[in-house]
């Protein structure tokens, strides 16, 4: 079962994990991304491409479901303005075994960073800047490309 959510509202990690735990497998893995406050960050603003985002995340989840024997996938991404310390993204997976749950979770966050239409803008006291894409993120994604 694939659950995708994109919106401004915060989410309840415990409730999401409980849903995954109830899917009957022996393993649940998750990743939660939090807004970092480095360099005097006041707020992070997330823009997305609403007509494309849900479909892009669904394709990612379907790809993970083809690669690993998963019972459930939850992908949540917030948009709008967030303060340091707030949750921004959640990836959760349920499987019968830990390797599938952990690997699929890692795959999903690496691919989400480079394959879903989101853009971050950082607001600081001295101005605002768009975050540049990092080649390290491309390298992390490429580790999952099979020959």
């Amino acid at each position, binding site marked *: 079962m694939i659950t995708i959510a994109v919106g401004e509202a915060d989410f309840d990690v415990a409730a999401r994990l409980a849903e995954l735990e109830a899917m009957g497998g022996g393993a649940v893995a998750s990743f939660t991304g939090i807004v970092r406050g480095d360099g005097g960050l006041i707020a992070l603003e*997330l823009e997305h*491409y609403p007509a*494309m985002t849900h479909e*892009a995340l669904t394709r990612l989840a379907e790809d993970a479901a083809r690669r690993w024997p998963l019972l459930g996938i939850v992908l949540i991404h917030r948009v709008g303005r967030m303060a340091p310390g707030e949750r921004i993204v959640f990836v959760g997976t349920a499987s019968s075994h830990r390797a599938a749950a952990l690997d699929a979770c890692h795959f999903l966050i690496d691919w*989400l*960073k480079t394959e879903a*239409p989101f*853009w971050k803008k950082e607001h600081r006291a001295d101005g605002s800047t*768009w975050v540049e894409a990092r080649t390290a993120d491309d390298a992390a994604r490429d580790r999952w490309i099979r020959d």
Partner: protein
Amino acid sequence: MAIDFVYFAWVREAIGHDAERLDPPADALTVAAVIDWLSGLSDGHKRAFFDRSRIRAAIDQVFAPLDAPVAGAREIAFFPPVTGG
């Protein structure tokens, strides 16, 4: 044939609006050729598309390389490399 163009992040800011419906010339066959044409529309468009290496595109909500054909496209999006997660 009119195409809906949509812009995000600093591409949107440089152009000054987030969407416009335009009718590119018939000889603009690829995304790159459409960019060439768009660049001539205003200073903002020119600034947005100045560095092609930093431009990504999607045709009808699917990522597309700059050499992709645009025949039949209803919506073309331009934006910087994505930075979610």
